């Protein structure tokens, strides 16, 4: 169905990272003069695909072609030279340098090959902004810009190359309505018969407005490419979440949840950066799912509850108001947080299972100021039994365990500390499919024993598999709370994409 070679084509692309198959036989073709939307749930593989196209990673298998000629960029600079410019989701800016210095980093005009001509740099940046219609001061340090301003710098930087393919990963996440309008104008100005745009977004209304076709990825696989005109939003979401999961395992409906005690209550939690008036209750013995897209503020809720970030609002534990100023306070009130990045915030990788399990409970395992390692070994051995942690011995170093068993060690740490409320952030990230089920069983079992658990997860099947009730967030707000029995992936996605009132997704689903 293509006439002549596509502008950019990727065929049979596969890419694995240790423990994760990020992309499996993925296709994509971008035609001349079009805006191609790339959509998929968190973890569907969009960002990985972009990193391959921009030369940050290399594919394990598959080919990429630019105008029919094979290409394999060895790095971002080379991709730029080939005419591919990428605006990544995370900013790649130097906050201490000025706007102009950031845009032309690596391409500074010099006098006598030595002295940088900052005046010329600023003139070029000024001309670029004028052409793009962006109101930015080239001489401002980037650190002084708002997030939206920084996003505009990234966009200007990408367009300062003579790009033919412009790839944008969630460029509007930080932008206001006016800025989005500016961006769309820039995109339309950019598109010509020799150029094309790949546009990654979660926002269906934007995709409707700007794109010509939509390519859908799911779980690292290619699903379909649909023409934007004539495809209902409902059908795009259906392709994103897949339909086969409706039959997945669900938790037994918890009888009379409302009669039980409230273990943790959060009221009006707000932060300066993101959260707006977040409230919910967690009942004893319940698993509460916290769902939402990347950047919805789920982890921020957890960090605010445990006092890692400053916030306003109230937290009650077992019906009593508590003041939590630091994670140490949170632990004192029996709240344990398991970070999504367990290697960085959850484990002492170079220490053994015993040391890891003991870490949060050390003061209780000392005599006369000396740490009693015997206590630690006994407790660790108990935990290895209770959670069926697979390790040759309790003196095995944490980094030698599999992801699933590492996660169990972190859980054990909080169980030893007698935490009754556990906040588990992405409990199965980077864990094999087989081990996932084990973690699920473990969490369900802990809830049955009376622990109260908040599960933060980007994987909707996981939320549906575990949670008795599901709190859905979007842009720092709670957009809905669903009982598991009433929840479908489709329904959650609609709540998770309920952006600010004037740009809300027009819901077409019938199962609400």
């Amino acid at each position, binding site marked *: 169905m293509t006439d002549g070679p596509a502008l950019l084509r990727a065929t049979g692309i596969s890419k694995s990272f240790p423990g994760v198959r990020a992309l499996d036989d993925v296709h994509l073709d971008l035609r001349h003069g079009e805006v191609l939307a790339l959509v998929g749930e968190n973890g569907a593989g969009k960002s990985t695909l972009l990193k391959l196209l921009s030369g940050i990673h290399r594919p394990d298998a598959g080919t990429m072609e630019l105008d029919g000629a094979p290409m394999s960029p060895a790095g971002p600079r080379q991709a730029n030279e080939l005419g591919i410019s990428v605006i990544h989701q995370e900013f*790649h800016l130097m906050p201490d340098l000025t706007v102009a210095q950031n845009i032309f980093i*690596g391409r*500074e005009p010099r006098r006598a090959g030595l002295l*940088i001509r*900052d005046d010329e740099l600023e003139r070029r940046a000024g001309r670029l902004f004028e052409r793009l219609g962006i109101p930015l*001061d080239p001489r401002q340090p980037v650190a*002084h810009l708002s997030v939206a301003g920084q996003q505009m710098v990234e966009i200007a930087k990408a367009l300062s190359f003579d790009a033919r393919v412009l790839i944008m990963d969630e460029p509007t996440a930080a932008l206001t309505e006016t800025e989005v309008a500016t961006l769309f104008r820039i995109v339309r100005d950019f598109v010509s018969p020799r150029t094309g745009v790949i546009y990654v977004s979660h926002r269906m209304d934007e995709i409707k407005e700007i794109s010509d076709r939509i390519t859908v990825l799911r779980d690292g696989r290619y699903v379909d490419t649909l023409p934007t005109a004539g495809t209902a939003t409902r059908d795009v979401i259906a392709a994103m979440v897949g339909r086969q999961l409706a039959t997945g395992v669900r938790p037994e409906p918890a009888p009379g949840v409302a009669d039980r005690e409230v273990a943790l209550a959060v009221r009006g939690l707000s932060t300066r950066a993101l959260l707006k008036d977040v409230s919910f209750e967690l009942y004893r013995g319940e698993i509460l799912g916290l769902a939402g897209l990347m950047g919805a503020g789920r982890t921020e809720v957890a960090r605010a509850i445990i006092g890692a970030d400053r916030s306003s609002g109230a937290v009650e534990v077992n019906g009593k108001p508590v003041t939590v100023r630091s994670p140490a306070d949170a632990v004192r009130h029996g709240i344990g947080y398991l970070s999504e990045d367990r290697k960085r915030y959850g484990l002492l990788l170079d220490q053994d299972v015993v040391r890891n399990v003991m870490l949060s409970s050390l003061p209780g395992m000392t005599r006369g100021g000396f740490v009693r390692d015997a206590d630690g070994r006994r407790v660790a051995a108990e935990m290895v039994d209770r959670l069926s942690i697979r390790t040759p011995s309790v003196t095995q170093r944490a980094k030698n365990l599999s992801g699933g068993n590492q996660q169990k060690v972190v859980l054990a740490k909080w169980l030893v500390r007698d935490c009754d409320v556990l906040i588990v952030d992405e409990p199965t990230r980077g864990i094999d499919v087989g081990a996932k089920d084990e973690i699920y069983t473990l969490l369900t079992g802990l809830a049955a024993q009376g622990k109260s658990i908040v599960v933060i997860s980007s994987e909707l099947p996981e939320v549906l598999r575990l949670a008795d009730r599901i709190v859905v967030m979007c842009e720092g707000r709670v957009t809905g709370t669903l009982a598991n029995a009433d929840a479908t992936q489709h329904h959650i996605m609609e709540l998770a994409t309920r952006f600010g009132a004037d740009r809300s997704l027009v819901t077409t689903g019938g199962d609400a």
Partner: protein
Amino acid sequence: MNVTRLGNRQQLQQLLAFGGLVVIFVFFSVASPYFLDWANVKGILLATAVTGIMALGATLVIATGGIDLSVGTGMTLCSVMTGVFLANLGLPLVVGVLGGLAIGALIGLLNGLNVAYLRLPPFIATLAMMMVAQGLSLVISGTKPIYFSDVPGFGQLAGGELVPGLPNAVLIFFVAAVLAGVTLSKTLTGRYALSIGSNEEATAISGVDVRRWKVVIYVVAGLFTGLAGVVMASRLNSAQPGLGLGYELEAIAAVVIGGTSLRGGKATILGTVIGALIMATLTNGLRIMSIPQEWQKVAVGIVIVLAVYADMLRRGKEA
């Protein structure tokens, strides 16, 4: 965010350091009648020159978020090698001086390679170099000073007064400071140093060859170490192999007091010059007031804490 206000705050920090210097100056001139004597002020400037030159190079390295512990003993090794070239081998003056600078560049090159390509933490790489340089200085000199008495003109390099009343060492320091300032703000070396210190990954993704530029930055810093070594040797008219240890910390202190952040990304040569002047003025003033040397150290330590805490407050508010 209000940009003007933030911009002003940064200038404020510069003013703070300068204001601190003025306050210290005024305090000592009131406290001691001898302090404002030109002879004494000249002494302060002379004392500033060598650590100051080392601090200029250290500023570039610290701008990247790195650290250079080898400037002190590295300076000594450059002194000793200058002695070998001039006093022992009898090479022409220019060759000996350039040789001393080249040894500094070599020290920087090795530091840079270790940091950029072996990926050693800068603290470790330059700590190792600090020890190597100290050991080599002692081995090469046979632990004895090398005197330049038979090298005509060498003592005049730093001790002479091209500008009457102002020792050349001070003049060299000021010229070096201008060069360092231009390097930091006007050349790729300085721009990429700040860029790496600001966000190394983003710099790399922008297509800058971060490893190569790190080597360049350490080499440039090494040149300043070499210059400090030559000036030191000329001032003492001898190369003292036992000196040098501890100078690196004074240089780093000067950089930090001046408002350059150890986290990288922000650096100011003017600040470093002021920082070096503060260090020397403080030591000199306390000595003139007959405060024992032990207490002088305590005072300098407290000033460092105050200066860095002020810097952190400023950064905290910006975030």
